[in-house]
């Protein structure tokens, strides 16, 4: 993943206020990989936050040749337990030496000098496919135990294409403004290490003074955000002229309105920097398309062109469509996942997709090959960069009677037949906690009867219109 012999600074860890060189990072990764060394290819659960120990844990999993699942260390304990039950990881890497709840002494602490490494006591489990290197969750913390299966080739190919598309160079310094376990956040880490650039690992949020002090004092050059991040920055009037080091800003994880794209593009251009709009999916490791700011404002509204090594086609019901026509976006490239997994036994599967991904996103290409995303084929909504499957969400609410959810802008409107007005806020708060999202993003409404179409299915188009009223 990176040059092991460089004395250049690789990582600054805000938690311990320390720089680590590439050589030091490599030594620590080898040391942890040694602890993870067993003959059989193993599954590692890596509970992540943006710090040095978790970085070493993640890289050691790759180094040891195992398959690592990256998980949010803030995930509810009950969900952690159910994931461990379902996948029976051979190792758990955690920043805490406290026993993981609900594991009933199944795991033994092997090492706590760096990241804490726990090893499962029971005998080797089902076989894990040779190509599998990484498991990422598709939907943040919605409580769905579904992972995207990625190979080391996927990771490296996507990192190289991104480095190429954004021209990341050794002088760059990125601050981690997104979670480690999120494909976009991870892509920042991979691309900067691959280039020999530096990383500043912090868990501070965009709304804290500490975050911006770090950007200024450590002269960070690169910032990454989802649409909501840029809405916050817009409200805060950031970055102002007191952050001269900030030269590259990237945006992905959903669609940012054209007005803000234009504004951030102009702000960055005026200071000699660049603002990139990007598009991608965890199913494609992270990135699918990048819009180089040299095409702005001409191509405002576009998510750019496919990354190097990738190709985008637009498919209708009867095959590929001509430029301008809207259809499903189909992506091919070396970064397309092997497939999904929903339990341990599926980790033995090989490459199901063979490099072609039907994204489920609707869009069109213009004559110059720029892609414009217009919506979703399937029922998904994006809230603060987190993708939620609306069918799964409705299933979670089935105990409260029939309900239907529609996503509009940056919130979800949920229509419930069975609930009383008084029960709504309780239900909302409970769901918000379960999904780890803010309760204001959920708008529960009572409806006497969900509208149905002639075929007996819920009329979501009508509900969307109602939700916008």
């Amino acid at each position, binding site marked *: 993943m990176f040059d092991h012999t460089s004395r250049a600074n690789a990582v600054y860890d805000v938690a311990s206020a320390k720089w680590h060189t590439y050589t030091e990072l490599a030594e620590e990764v080898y040391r942890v990989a040694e602890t993870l060394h067993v003959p059989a290819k193993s599954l590692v659960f890596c509970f992540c936050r943006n710090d040095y120990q978790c970085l070493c844990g993640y890289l050691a999993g790759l180094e040891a040749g195992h398959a690592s699942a990256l998980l949010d260390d*803030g995930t509810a304990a009950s969900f952690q337990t159910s994931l461990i039950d379902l996948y029976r990881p051979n190792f758990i890497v955690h920043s805490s030496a406290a026993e993981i709840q609900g594991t009933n002494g199944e795991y033994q602490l092997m090492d706590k000098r760096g990241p804490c490494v726990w090893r499962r006591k029971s005998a080797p489990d089902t076989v894990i496919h040779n190509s599998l290197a990484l498991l990422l969750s598709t939907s943040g913390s919605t409580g769905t135990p579904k992972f995207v299966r990625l190979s080391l080739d996927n990771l490296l190919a996507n990192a190289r294409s991104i480095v190429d598309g954004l021209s990341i160079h050794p002088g760059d310094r990125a601050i981690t403004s997104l979670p480690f376990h999120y494909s976009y956040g991870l892509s920042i880490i991979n691309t900067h290490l691959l280039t020999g650039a530096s990383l500043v690992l912090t868990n501070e*949020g*965009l*709304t*804290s*003074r500490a975050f*911006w002090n770090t950007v200024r004092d450590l002269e960070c050059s690169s910032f990454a955000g989802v649409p*909501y*991040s840029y809405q*916050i920055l817009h*409200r*805060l*009037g*950031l970055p*102002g002229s007191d952050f001269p080091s900030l030269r590259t800003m990237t945006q992905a994880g959903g669609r940012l309105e054209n007005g803000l794209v234009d504004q951030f593009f102009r702000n960055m251009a005026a200071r000699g920097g660049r603002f990139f709009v990007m598009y991608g999916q965890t199913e494609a490791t992270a990135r699918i398309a990048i819009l180089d700011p040299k095409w702005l404002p001409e191509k405002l509204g576009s998510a750019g062109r496919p990354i190097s090594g990738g190709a985008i086609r637009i498919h209708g019901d009867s095959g590929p469509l001509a430029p301008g026509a809207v259809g499903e976006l189909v992506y091919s490239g070396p970064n397309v996942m092997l497939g999904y997994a929903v339990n341990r036994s599926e980790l033995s599967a090989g490459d199901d997709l063979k490099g072609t991904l039907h994204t489920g996103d609707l869009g069109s290409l213009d004559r110059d090959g720029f892609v414009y995303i217009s919506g979703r084929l399937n029922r998904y909504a994006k809230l*603060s960069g987190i993708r939620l499957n609306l069918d799964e969400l409705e299933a979670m609410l089935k105990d409260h009677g029939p309900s239907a959810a529609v996503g509009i802008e940056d919130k979800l409107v949920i229509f419930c037949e069975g609930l009383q007005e008084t029960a709504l806020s309780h239900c909302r*708060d409970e769901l*918000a906690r379960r999904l780890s*999202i*803010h*309760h*204001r*993003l959920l708008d529960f409404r009572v409806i006497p009867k969900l509208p149905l179409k002639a075929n007996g299915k819920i009329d979501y188009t009508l509900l969307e219109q109602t939700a916008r009223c």
Partner: protein
Amino acid sequence: MNTEEDFVHKATATVTDSQERLKHAFAAAFAVSPDSGVEQMVYGECASWDSTAHMVLIAEIESAFDIMLATEDVIDLSSFEKAKEIVAKYGVSFEG
């Protein structure tokens, strides 16, 4: 004619009002009861205080006191006590 007692009563009412309004703003932003100890809340010690909650809190405070917070104040607002200090700068009184 205002007696001194009236005056004292009014002043106390203002204190309670501002304090209560701030408590309600916190309660609304974090989906908790205003009497659940929101006065002790500190950013970084409270898992639900992420950037989304922070921006909702800012909006709640701005509408509760009909003020518009400057960038510096938005990123400095890191606890209930700090919020009182900041809101006070905009002419809201918490003192008797």
